[in-house]
């Protein structure tokens, strides 16, 4: 997907998944989507909490076995 920033935090533990997600959010432009992939279980719950605190859009949370994939959208950028 165009305008998608991928963050791979598989194998990382607290607080790295949250921190790397935040770094990507800070660098992202309006309208861009961030895809975070990881397997640290608490972060699957906590990254959406951060997304809510930051006023961003949580597009989806998918789970496959131990791995999860979270899509975050930075508001703005034309198509909403």
């Amino acid at each position: 997907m165009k305008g998608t920033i991928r963050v791979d935090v598989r194998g990382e533990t607290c607080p790295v998944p949250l921190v790397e997600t935040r770094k990507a959010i800070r660098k992202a432009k309006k309208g861009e989507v961030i895809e975070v992939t990881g397997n640290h279980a608490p972060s699957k719950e906590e990254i959406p909490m951060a997304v809510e605190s930051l006023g961003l859009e949580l597009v989806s949370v998918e789970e496959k076995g131990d791995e999860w994939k979270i899509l975050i959208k930075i508001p703005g950028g034309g198509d909403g």
Partner: protein
Amino acid sequence: MADKVTLIIQSGYYDRIYSALVIGTGALSMGMDVSMYFTFFGLDRLKKGKLEKGPLSRMNMLGLGKFMVKRRMKKANVRSLSALMDDYIELGGNVLACDMTMEIMGSSLDEMDERIITDHCAVGTYIKEARESDITLFL
């Protein structure tokens, strides 16, 4: 105004510095502003090359305990204190050094790691920030 966290780092123990940096980076990641005030033994950890050098607060056993904890942390892929401090700075966290401690410990700003320190100050600055904070912790 963004939500704010202020931390006092009075202790220089390895595990306490970990707690401070995990909470600090976590709060920044959740969109809060964070200031850490380093005082007394905590201030030692701001000296050049000293961030990782503190002993464990318990079961240090002349460094053997710390060695074992570090080995387990490496196995669990826990990020190092230096790398967490880099994250903290990158995400906009503030690090403040206590003027009075520098005076009584006979240390100067020249000894401190200038990559880390944002500013130095006295208690009034902490109180001003703490009263505006949602969370304030003493470590």
